[in-house]
């Protein structure tokens, strides 16, 4: 198995390289003058030219790419045209916030979505099943940004129950930074006020993220489990006198696990890389917000960096999913 892992990791490199070529080309063929956009309309032509030269935008495209690749190999993701700071320094600050949000949302997705799908399958045709299918269709149809805004309006503006935006109420309430993930840092520093404050701030964005993805998880889990419940071995197990719970947990679920794990892996990748809209609505200072801002401003280097990170996240989660197959289903051999 370890050769499988080594091979998969080695295959990530050409995939990432391919992504850099595609995104690099696309960002640079957009008809716009990023140097002028970065310098602002009040800047003189001399300032714009100086910036253009500094950013190597006056060189041919292949030369620009080679420079970029050279920097990348040294861990240099370039500079933001707008802030002037190193992208690697900036993006490192944003990753913990996104990771924390994604992990909590993923945990809730697994905690709620998978059991709901299983119960729906086990109670096929009954109220819970119908309700869960309705929930799945309803949440899948809701636009994420709309849901987020409505939740803010109801729970903050009308009911004053939950905070509107951000990770903490004030900077002073943030825990001492160790990992950058406030829940973890609050636990490590035993800062219970920060823990509660952070939890409260996570409720709405996590709920928005989970609600937007739960439909798929519930429906897929339900379908996969239903498929297995109709198999002969399940009938045999029941005939032997095994209870419903045991049949579900020990037999049907394990066989249904592979597609569910696949889907959960994809959902985690999406949560990591696709939470930009939610981060924007809730002013969650994560990579998504950073990327969104960079896209609007045509800031190439952060866009490239975000794409690389998102691609890497997808590749890694796919690898983890594949490795998990073998754990879930011993018949699977990784070659």
């Amino acid at each position, binding site marked *: 198995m370890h050769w499988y892992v080594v091979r998969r990791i080695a295959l990530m490199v050409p995939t990432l390289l391919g992504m850099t070529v595609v995104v690099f080309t696309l960002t640079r063929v957009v*008809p716009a003058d990023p140097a*002028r956009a970065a310098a602002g309309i*009040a800047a003189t*032509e001399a300032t714009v030219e100086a910036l253009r030269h500094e950013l190597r935008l006056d060189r041919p495209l292949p030369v620009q790419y080679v420079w970029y690749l050279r920097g990348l190999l040294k861990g240099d993701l370039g500079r933001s045209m707008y802030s002037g*700071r190193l992208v690697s320094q900036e993006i490192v600050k944003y990753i913990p916030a996104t990771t924390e949000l994604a992990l909590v949302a993923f945990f809730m997705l697994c905690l709620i979505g998978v059991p709901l799908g299983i119960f729906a399958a086990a109670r096929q045709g009954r109220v819970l099943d119908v309700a869960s299918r309705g929930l799945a269709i309803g949440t899948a149809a809701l636009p994420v940004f709309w849901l987020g805004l409505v939740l803010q309006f109801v729970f903050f503006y009308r009911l004053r129950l939950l905070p509107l935006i*951000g990770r903490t109420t004030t900077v002073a309430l943030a825990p001492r930074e160790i990992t950058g993930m406030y829940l973890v840092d609050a636990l490590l520093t035993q800062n219970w006020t920060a823990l509660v404050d952070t939890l409260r701030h996570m409720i709405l964005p996590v709920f928005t993220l989970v609600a937007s993805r739960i439909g798929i998880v519930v429906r897929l889990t339900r379908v996969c489990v239903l498929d297995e419940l109709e198999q002969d071995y399940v009938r045999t197990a029941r005939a032997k006198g095994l209870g419903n719970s045991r049949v579900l947990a020990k037999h049907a679920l394990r066989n249904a696990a592979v597609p569910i794990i696949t889907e959960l892996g994809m959902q985690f990748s999406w949560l990591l890389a696709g939470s930009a809209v939610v981060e924007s609505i809730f002013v969650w200072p994560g990579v998504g917000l950073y990327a969104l801002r960079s896209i609007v401003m045509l800031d190439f280097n952060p866009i490239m960096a975000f794409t690389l990170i998102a691609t890497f996240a997808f590749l890694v989660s796919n690898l983890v999913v594949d490795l998990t197959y073998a754990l879930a289903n011993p018949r699977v051999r990784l070659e």
Partner: protein
Amino acid sequence: MKALRLSSMVVAVSLLVWIGFAAVGLEKNELLIVETTYLTRMDPQDNVQMTGYYLLPCYEGLVRFKVQEDAEIEPCLAASWEISADSTVYTFHIRQNVLFHDGTALDANAVKVSFDRAVSKQLATSAYISTVTNPEEEGAVGEPLGTVEVVDPATIRITLRGVLPTFLMKLALFPIVSPKPVTENPTDLGAEWYKNNIDGTGPYTLDYWKAPAELGLKRFDGYWGGWEGKHLDKVVFLTIEQLQTGEQMLLAGDCDINRSTLQDSQAALRKNPNIVLAFPGSPYSLFTIAFNTKKWPTADILVRKAISLCYNAAAAISLLGGPPNAMGFNGPVAATNQYYNKALPVPEYNLDKAKELLQQAGYPGGKGLPAFELPWSQHVVAEDVASQVLKSECAKVGITVNPVAMGFATMLDMGKSWKTCDNLTFISSYPAFDPVPDQLMQFMYHTGGVYNWNFFSSTPDGANIDAMIDQATTEPNDTIRAALYNQLQEIAVSNYLAIWAIANAVPAALRANVKGFVTMNAYYVHFPVYNMWKE
């Protein structure tokens, strides 16, 4: 049973989370301003974007604008100055006992370091101290205005290469930074350091920066202006892109100022006793639909005039909420500008006349004219509305106009050449709020200006326009300057170089307990936080 236990636990935890939290609101001496634009650069000398105003509480210039409506200069880091008889030599006497945030004392040398830094690195604010001349003149663009000389530690002398009547106003926008990070980092003149830090002489300094959205400033106890009277201890700029979120925060009391209000909410906000609306003194920009006067068919003045007559300004103004949110304007310069030509006629809306002109031009009923694309800056509501109004009115005379939303950077790129520029394009005439129009004229209409569409040079007076703008910029006689600017505006209007579409001003909303705010015409947006307090 298990399900019941589980759901009870969930409810209990939820309640704990909510109840257990001790609500923390705004401190009395802390001002929270919600903005919609991110602060991109912390280096004040490299930031002329609108968000540069976030740094205004931290940095000062030799002179500054008085905190009042009209733009008037007063001493700041220079306690006094003399101007030579020929208006080319300015001798500034540096204020004593002024400290930078790092404890360095202000002196003439520190001022010179700031000037040299901005010019040598071609930083954005070098525009304020650079000669704006014809770029074809070799070496002229980006050259500083003469020399900056340290006479003694308390005196600095600036010798201009020519007369510049607006020099003091430009200096008011030029920040003096601490020389310490500059001299300690000679290779980049402190560029890297200033990207993450603040070090000026202003009343506030950096408390924290949670990039990209939150900038916290705290008072600088060593500020030369002192802290007697009512002042704020902290100022926080929080960027939230969604306007409705900022509004919710304002109404809930979770922020003190919401910089941009939704047009639909303004009527309700006006009625709210806890909220005060503050309109900027001048519009940020005048939204103008410019004609490509070199490209067929808008090279024909009759076609330009016909399209201009189709624009129903009253309808656009009404759709945008009416004055003071939206107003018409009559030419390239805002009515609040001291050099505004009051004799300019109000743009006419007359579809019958438009039809006649099309007939005269050889395009009866619009036949033979191409469909015009009208690029407008995405997210700019005023341009969206105005372009739709033009489209619907032009359709009545047989002219097809197709508005197209575009990124600003793309529009700038297209405008580099008249060949790539569309027949009609939205331009924001920036900076409309400047007290004098020389920078606006340079940007918009001078050969080599940012927009570079060369409209003026396509008119019969084209050959003289650059010279007129240059002369107006440097003319010491105010009567002659006024006459030149009047003439330039008149030329723009009589040649139908553009449709003067909308002057749009978005008000800020303040909680009623925020006091001391004054609209300053010198800036589109500025909250003079040192003079403000909360009750």
